[in-house]
């Protein structure tokens, strides 16, 4: 009879051939998927070559996505994407995505069934933690760790302690997974879960659709966490059913597993939340934000660029127009989401509202392209970070919110919720 473990411990144990791992223990674990993008993979490929390695450990399990500065925004970016393309060809990688196949990596990999429950995934991108919504252990690493995993199929980890977050009650209208995670980061701070696993549980999580769950796990890194994770339920299994490319395994935490601490929230009286610049922890309820005029509204990203997010924005924007002087930018996160949005008439609603609809890209989220801010400009965005200079000039400002708030703000010309629109 082994000792009680969290879902995070169980997945890590299973990937290093053990029945039990202890928080704090250093392990060398087998990696199911190793991911890189056009910013981080060039460094990893360089290290791969310098090491003298000839072949990746498994051509099915090294995934490259050219999504950050693509469609190539300038010549250096084009060269970085070229590096990925040549490496993918040389190594005959099954999963290389660019051009019309490319989507924002953390929306694309779950959609294509490349990642699934019980997996151990590393990605040279901090928002790799998104896949925790599937009941996987997924964490961001640097390019050197990625290079090492591309060669060996392994990565070392310190087994994290877990924090248990319990969300009770039912979300009011216009309150989404994004609001739950913003509220949580506001509560514990940007280092509140440093080095630890954030385990999201409770009836309110059970009611969330997968898109909302991905939004929550996505921003675990904004609290400093190693990973965010949720036990798979029937919604998870329905999501992976016709997608999973490999067999998957469902793990759950033992009832008597140990946690560093527990946080309990009643979501029933929660309002939509807004994170004020320059930190994702500067969170307050929408009604406390006051008068903030905006120049730009961005709806998209690995946090909130999924079909459900676009539907929510379209509900607000239908029959309305973005205020004069506000640039509304909508970025479906993958080609499939774009196609579905087109078929459902969402793109028409956005175009009628005066939006610019961008091809899938990380683009403005990290100040790359497709909507960069000038000095003094203010944006509301459904993205994940509002650090100094994140979306452009160091003297520009980003407010983080859910898609309904971003859409309503575009119409109002200032930060506002759907209920404040005439």
């Amino acid at each position, binding site marked *: 009879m082994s000792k009680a473990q969290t879902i995070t411990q169980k997945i890590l144990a299973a990937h290093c051939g053990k029945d039990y791992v202890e928080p704090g223990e250093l392990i060398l674990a087998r990696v199911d998927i190793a991911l890189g993008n056009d910013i981080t993979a060039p460094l990893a490929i360089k290290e791969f070559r310098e090491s003298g390695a000839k072949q990746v450990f498994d051509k099915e399990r090294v995934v490259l996505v050219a999504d950050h500065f693509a469609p190539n925004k300038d010549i250096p970016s084009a060269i970085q994407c070229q590096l990925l393309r040549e490496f993918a060809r040389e190594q005959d990688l099954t999963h290389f995505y660019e051009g019309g196949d490319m989507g924002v990596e953390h929306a694309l990999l779950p959609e294509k069934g490349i990642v699934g429950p019980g997996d151990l995934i590393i990605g040279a991108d901090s928002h790799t933690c998104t896949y925790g919504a599937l009941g996987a252990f997924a964490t961001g690493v640097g390019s*050197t760790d990625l290079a090492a995993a591309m060669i060996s199929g392994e990565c070392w980890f310190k087994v994290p302690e877990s924090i248990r977050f319990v969300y009770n009650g039912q979300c009011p209208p216009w309150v989404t997974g994004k609001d739950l995670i913003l509220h949580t980061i506001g509560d514990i701070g940007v280092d509140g879960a440093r080095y630890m696993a954030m385990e999201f549980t409770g009836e309110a999580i059970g009611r969330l659709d997968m898109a909302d769950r991905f939004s929550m796990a996505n921003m675990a890194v904004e609290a400093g966490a190693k990973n965010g994770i949720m036990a798979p339920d029937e919604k998870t299994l329905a999501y992976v059913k016709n997608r999973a490319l490999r067999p998957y395994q469902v793990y759950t935490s033992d009832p008597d597993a140990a946690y560093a601490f527990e946080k309990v929230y009643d979501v029933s009286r929660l309002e939509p939340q807004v994170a004020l610049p320059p930190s994702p922890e500067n969170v307050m309820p929408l009604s406390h934000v006051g008068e903030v005029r905006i120049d730009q509204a961005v709806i998209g990203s690995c946090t909130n660029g999924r079909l459900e997010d676009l539907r929510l924005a379209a509900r607000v924007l239908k029959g309305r127009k973005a205020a004069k002087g506000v640039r509304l930018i909508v970025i479906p996160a993958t080609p499939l989401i774009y196609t579905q949005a087109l078929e459902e008439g969402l793109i028409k609603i956005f175009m009628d509202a005066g939006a610019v609809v961008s091809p899938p890209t990380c683009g403005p989220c990290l100040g790359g392209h497709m909507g960069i801010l000038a000095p003094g400009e203010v944006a509301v965005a459904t993205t994940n970070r509002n*650090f100094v200079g994140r979306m452009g000039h160091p003297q520009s400002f980003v407010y983080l919110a859910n898609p309904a708030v971003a859409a309503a703000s575009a119409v109002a010309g200032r930060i506002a919720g759907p209920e404040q629109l005439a």
Partner: protein
Amino acid sequence: MELKGRVHKFGDDINTDEIIPARYLNTSDPMELAKHAMEDADPEFRQRMQPGDFIVAGKNFGCGSSREHAPIAIKAAGVAAVIADSFARIFYRNAFNMGLPILESPEAAADLKDGDEISVNLDTGAITVMATGRTFHSQPIPPFMQELLADGGLMAHLKKKLETHRT
């Protein structure tokens, strides 16, 4: 190994966008990245610093993105080591993997002042203010990480392991 230099003080939660803004990430050339090290935290840092100087910061240094360009930019700018109250986890990994020495010492992070001349002993973790002789102790580096550093970073460590397997 003994390092000597001047302190450049920063606050809490210095994120990777401040260390190396994404607008410069269309290259991974260390010398290009070094030109912009810490630019959005302190635009004058590159003019003020001398090679061999130290960055001293508060809690959660290096939070945010996984970009290895952050420790690369700092190291290529000539910063000898970063001393902080605490480090964000991906930055911590990346710094070791890149061979940028980092030391965790809440006392040093709180007490050291901008412009202080200090000496740092990487073997013992001792941080000494040269004017007063006051010494702070940093958290010992875990044995597993010491092995990585001794081998010269993660890739060198892996190479050595591959060679050991072959023989």
